[in-house]
């Protein structure tokens, strides 16, 4: 009797230790895990949607062409396909549904994704049951494995740039931009072979979250320039964000109706450029 009890005890301790060691490694959905899905011989509906969602996020212009208007990809802002902390990571399924002041209603993750298409991708708002939306929400669910529902996951959103005591200054920001950013993003902000366009008709519109100075300043401070992150001062990041804010870009679809039509015509007559890599 005692031997049996002891065996049970030892076994259960061993299992708990193994769980303790293995669980943290297995919980957060990692990119390797997503990519390993592609090698499996068969994927069920959920996993095939996860893989499709991952491909949509990294190759948005091509695969989600139905609803995308500009030449951006999701992974231009959600760096590393939405897995880098401080760069708008996508492991946020536990935060939805929630109320947002942007549209004044309760937002499921589906509506959140659809608004990305309407604002950040400056395209059409897809319906709630569009395959693209369902696939991206499956991908978000997969990445959110191990997060606590209702609790903000680590590295959520972008860091908040502290108040420097000075107003963001677009003119200074322009100087910083020409010095530090234009190498990749171009003098006219139209992007290059390894950087997305920052303004103009091929970039996000005025309704996008990136158009808000605090968001873009936090993003720039934490993630830019690539390879030399956090080298800008808080004030420089705010100035660059203000500089980007005053540039010409597609209008907010909620405010300008005829303007949108004009932009669409402009875009359909402008020569097609090659896609921008990630």
């Amino acid at each position: 009797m005692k031997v049996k009890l002891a065996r049970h005890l030892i076994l259960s301790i061993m299992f708990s230790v193994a769980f303790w060691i293995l669980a943290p490694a297995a919980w957060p959905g990692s990119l390797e895990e997503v990519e390993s899905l592609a090698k499996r011989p068969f994927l069920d509906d959920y996993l095939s949607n996860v893989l499709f969602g991952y491909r949509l996020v990294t190759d948005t212009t091509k695969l989600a062409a139905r609803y995308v208007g500009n030449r951006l990809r999701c992974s231009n802002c959600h760096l590393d396909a939405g897995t880098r902390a401080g760069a708008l990571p996508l492991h946020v399924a536990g935060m939805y549904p929630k109320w947002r002041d942007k549209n004044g209603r309760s937002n499921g993750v589906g509506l959140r994704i659809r608004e990305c298409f309407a604002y950040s991708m400056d395209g059409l708002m897809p319906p709630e049951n569009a395959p693209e939306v369902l696939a991206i929400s499956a991908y978000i669910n997969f990445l959110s494995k191990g997060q606590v529902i209702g609790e903000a996951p680590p590295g959520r959103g972008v860091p908040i740039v502290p108040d420097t005591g000075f107003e963001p200054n677009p003119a200074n920001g322009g100087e910083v931009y020409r010095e530090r950013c234009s190498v990749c993003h171009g003098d006219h902000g139209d992007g290059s072979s390894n950087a997305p366009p920052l303004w103009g008709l091929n970039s996000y519109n005025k309704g996008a979250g990136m158009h808000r100075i605090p968001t873009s300043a936090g993003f720039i401070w934490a993630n830019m320039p690539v390879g030399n992150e956090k080298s800008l001062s808080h004030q420089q990041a705010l100035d660059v964000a203000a500089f980007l804010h005053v540039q010409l870009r597609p209008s907010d679809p909620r405010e300008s109706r005829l303007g949108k039509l004009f932009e669409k015509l402009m875009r359909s007559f402008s020569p097609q450029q090659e896609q921008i890599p990630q």
Partner: protein
Amino acid sequence: MTFRLLTSVQQNALFREACPNLSWLRRMRPRQEAFIGFVGAVLVIPQAVSFAYLAGLPPEYGLYCAIYVTLFACLFGNSTIVGGPNTAVAMLIGEEVIRFAGRGSPLYIDGVLILSLLVGLIQLMIWLLRGGRYFQYFSPAAVLGITTGVGFQILFSTLEGITGVDGLNVPFFFQKIAILMMSGEDLINPYAVTVGVLTIVTGVGLRRLLPRTHILVAAAVGILAASSIHAFQPQVITEMEMLGRLPFSLFPFSTPPWGNDYFHMALEMIPAATAIAVIGLAQTMVIAKGINLDHGERVNLDKEAFAQAASNFLAPFFSSFAGSGSFNRTALNRQIGANTPLSGIFSSGFVLLLSVVCGAYFAYLPMPVMAGMLFIVGLATIKPMEIRRLAQVRQEFATFAATFVTIAFMGLNTGLVVALLLSLIPFILGATRLECKRVRVGPGMALELHGNLFFASLDQFSTYLSQAEGMPVIIDLRHVAYFDNSAAELILREEHRRRQQGFLLVVSAHTSEQEALLLSANAGQAGDLAVVSSLQEAKVLLKTALATTDPDR
């Protein structure tokens, strides 16, 4: 003796049907056919997109289907039948694959490719077994019931697009109505309903006035209405679904997926694939039959069956779903003067060209307008005049009504089976009817049978026998077309019984086949049935037998 599946003549016939027959090259008129092809392409594009929507696929798949399936069907066929995306087939595909994955997801698309391949394979099998001609068994009433049922289902399938309510893709109309009544008022999108209803009203109103272009005019009105709504309320607020830019590629090569799990999926799809194969071929065959009744063109049914099967088999390799012959496009094609498959080939080429050139302008086509156009198409397949004409014959109307009600309440698959059974019932009843003419022969009786003597008519036969109880009997098989083993055994048993009672039973066989069956049954039961080959012999036999067995005479 070596076993040969087919004779060399049959092999040659199969080979001739399977090869593209280019004899039409000599009688083609390229410029006229090109114009007809262009009209066909303009007509098929909105249909292709909405049928892809019915099948649960992204719209570009419908265009691929309208290009490649049409092309292959025309290349392998030798007639003016236009194949391609088809309502009933698309709807059945959507109903089946939704069991495995969500609409439009990668697994769903894999499922559609597998299903199309299966449909092609089953149709090839039907073609090899020379099954094309059996589709003539669908009576006109059943065909009308099927098309009306499909039209009815189309009407309800557009509700999702018109109201903008998700989750209306349940199979039956009463479920849709229930969902709309219970939770509709919060979910219905008023902007979408406005645009959709305006499209439908315009289309239906102009149907008499502009019989060919009313759908396009209705679409223009709908697009205009949606644009004016969007001038005041942005799409982000109205949430009206738009078609979006089509990621169109010229050569969309794809392969159906391969593997253990996909194989199991394919096994589960076989019943539905069979139903789709049958309904697809049935439509093509009904169209071909219609053309043959019309003067001027002879259509080889088997060749068209092969063309349909081959194009469906090749469809999944070009990102397309299965299709079939199209009633409305074939009718238009012939109406404006096509007489070779070239017009269909031109039509698929023009679809390709228009998709590349105008693809960008499809982006702002609102889904309620697409749904409205589909509604008009669905309404056009319901023909009240023909139903009224049918209502005068009670039996045909019953076939029609039963088919229609089954499709509406139990789905297209079940409806198809019911239609086939109801079409066959008059044949079956006719085939089992056995009539008997009694002729006195001296003290005995000759039973002259008319009809088929087989397992299904044995009941009637034994009734006739019992009416000739207690006397010698001649069974005259001169007018029996079909005679089977169970009938031979019954006759033998009867003969045995009567012999014990002291009466004779003689069979006058007409064909050597009947004689052989009777004799082999006789040998098997070690009886001694008298089988003769003419009535005269039978009478002689009867009389001599009476003279010898009956001592009183």
